[in-house]
């Protein structure tokens, strides 16, 4: 361990924990914004369409991809946390389950990204 002064044990579990917190915070703040902009449907159709229109560009399309990536990771890792808590086999093999999380995440993103980016960059 460089420096040797850190009390962190490092290893897969710790990084999964860091990623779980990071993605959780990101999704929380997105949720606050998401409810607020959707609330514009109660102001007027025009106001809502105008603000949603601001999101319809390649940059926001990539931000949305990042958010979906964060949500899918948080969901899959959450399932890993639950199984580690309740299932002894999972507790012993949490490392292997961490890899399962990333493999499933890649599969889910491979299903999502082409379609979403097609909508974002394909014009329709």
């Amino acid at each position, binding site marked *: 361990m460089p420096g*040797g002064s850190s009390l962190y044990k490092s290893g897969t579990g710790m990084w999964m924990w860091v990623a779980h917190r990071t993605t959780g915070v990101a*999704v*929380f703040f997105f949720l606050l914004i998401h409810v607020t902009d959707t609330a514009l*449907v*109660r102001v007027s159709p*025009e106001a809502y369409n105008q603000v949603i229109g601001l999101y*319809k560009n390649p940059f926001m399309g990539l931000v949305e991809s990042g958010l979906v990536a964060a949500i899918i990771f948080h969901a899959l890792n959450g399932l890993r946390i639950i199984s580690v808590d309740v299932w002894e086999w999972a507790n012993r093999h949490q490392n292997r389950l961490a890899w399962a999380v990333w493999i499933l995440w890649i599969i889910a993103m491979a299903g999502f990204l082409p379609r979403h980016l097609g*909508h*974002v960059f394909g014009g*329709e």
Partner: protein
Amino acid sequence: MSAPAVVPPRFRRPPHSRIHTEKWAWLFMRASGALLIVLIFTHLFVNLMTGNGISAIDFGFVAGKWANPLWKWWDAAMLVLAMIHGTNGMRLLVNDYARTRWVRRTLKSALAAAFTLVVVLGSLVIFTFDPCPEGAAATDLNAAVCASITHTATTSEAP
């Protein structure tokens, strides 16, 4: 390399609460998390993967979805569960990282305010939604939804 010396934390454990708040919070995170996977994955699939995905989202799209009470309750359940789940997660982070009592208290008050505001605002928007407000441009509205509303209005007026 010898292991770093660990200074025992000076921490007074708060008296056990009778209702075991932290145990229930722990359990809630697992239960709501599992439920939110179903709710949010469906939400994302329907809104982003079907039809024209994100480029089809506008006022008319929302009106079309909320014409069905199932989607209203779906979204309300997502709103409440995700806000409790997220706010509790943020509370745990505040407990871990905020060093002084003042910072802890300020951040937790901000969390409570954000929670109340977003849940009340979101619920009101879902359940008082008007798909065809007067004076709106017809091009902004969902024609099918508005036609079905005028249709039921005229048929219910007839004796």
